[in-house]
């Protein structure tokens, strides 16, 4: 139970079924929050984030259902390709790149440990930052994804479920913290000071993905 204890045990192995559970839980959460995401986006965007993400993750879900014998890395690569193709807008390329880069990091290994998951999600974050050039504080996906990776890194030597719980809370807090920010990247930045007071829909969907990751780890 204690962290010191888990260190002495051999670390828990994660596999393709863990990744599949994460993707299924993500699709369910996105579908459940479709209207909420769209409402958030209506305030500072095109009011299509919920619809676009739901369309993309519905496609991911059917990919997972028909994926037989894919490695964890291949599942994430396929997810990335599906999101780029099906989501559109800024979210498609950004999330697509994140999953693709995370998948490339995992390569073709059939199982992996928490440390690999942390590094894979960090690789995904770096993909988002490279494409979008956003920093923390710009009111984007990065504001939820960065604290989540940081929380994972702090908890990387413990139980996966403990680490993902911390990441979930950090992503949630990060998404809440976008409300008072003025958007510096993306179309919301056209609004300038008028973007203040609205939660960033991308940061909220990122928080959903980390909540789903936590459920998959339990």
């Amino acid at each position: 139970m204690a962290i010191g204890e888990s260190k002495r045990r051999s670390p828990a192995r994660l596999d393709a079924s863990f990744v599949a559970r994460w993707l299924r839980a993500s699709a369910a959460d996105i579908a459940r929050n479709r209207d909420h995401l769209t409402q958030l986006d209506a305030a500072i965007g095109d009011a299509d984030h919920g619809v676009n993400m739901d369309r993309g993750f519905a496609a991911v879900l059917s990919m997972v259902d028909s994926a037989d014998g894919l490695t964890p890395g291949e599942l994430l690569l396929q997810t990335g390709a599906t999101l780029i193709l099906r989501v559109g807008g800024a979210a498609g390329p950004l999330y697509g790149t994140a999953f693709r880069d995370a998948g490339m990091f995992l390569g073709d290994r059939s199982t992996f440990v928490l440390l690999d998951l942390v590094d894979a999600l960090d690789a995904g974050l770096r993909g988002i930052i490279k494409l979008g050039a956003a920093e923390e504080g710009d009111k984007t996906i990065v504001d939820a994804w960065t604290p989540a990776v940081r929380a994972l890194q702090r908890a990387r030597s413990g139980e996966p479920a403990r680490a993902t719980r911390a990441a979930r809370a950090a992503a949630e807090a990060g998404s809440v913290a976008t409300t008072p920010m003025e958007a510096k990247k993306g179309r919301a930045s056209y609004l300038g000071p008028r973007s203040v007071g609205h939660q960033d829909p991308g940061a909220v969907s990122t928080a959903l993905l980390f909540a789903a990751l936590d459920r998959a780890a339990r």
Partner: protein
Amino acid sequence: MTGASIQSVDRAARILKALAAGSPRLGVSELAERVGLAKTTVHGLLRTLERQDLVEQDAETGKYRLGPELLQLGNAFLDHHELRSRSLVWADTLAERVGEAVRVGVLYGRSVLVVHHVFRPDDSVQILEVGATLPWHTSALGKAHAAHLTPERRRTLLSGPLPRLTGRTLVDPHAIAIALEEVAQAGYATEDEEAVIGEGEIAAAVFDHGGHPVGAIGVVGPVERLQVAAPPEALLVALTDTARRLSWEMGARRGRRGAGIHRSVAPAARR
């Protein structure tokens, strides 16, 4: 040197700008701190601005916010903007013709101000971008306008700060200078996810009677549809055709520059 009365105008302007940036309501002390003036001075300025309806005080909190008269001033600016007024009909027609959103922008300082925006004609929810300012080098409107400026003004633009908005934003002055040469050659400018991921824009400059650029009109939309790297010919023809007609309305003489895409495209053959 600045006289007392001019100094107070400057201070009043700074107060309005402070209220426009960031938090929508500010108290006298917060404002005094932001503009670096004594509280009594700020209070006096606020009362004067309030009498002109340029600021208003929140009855409950006593804090100040921008006043309704500013909307009138902003609207008057747009109403009196010649390029905007003349582009209203042309922009609508162009949006219909290509099935995408259309923006008209003008270079002011180092930014493009969007003075007109026609939504993509598909009934989807879109936000009005009139009044938005974009760093000039991240926008096809800005590049189209800048490409036709004098070499000296282009150099000034290229030597200033060139912020990065996405991983694709061009931030190397030499690369941008080459891009501007290409824009001047081709008769249109493109922007490929350089301002917003997933979005692109194709724009052409509009000229006045002296052959000087006064702004640009552009088609903006999802990169997968616009194919910014090699735009559909029908779109290019519709865009440059519109820019040329708009230029004529602005007094540009026929047959001068801005006369369309300088490639093997016969605009008449298309419609």
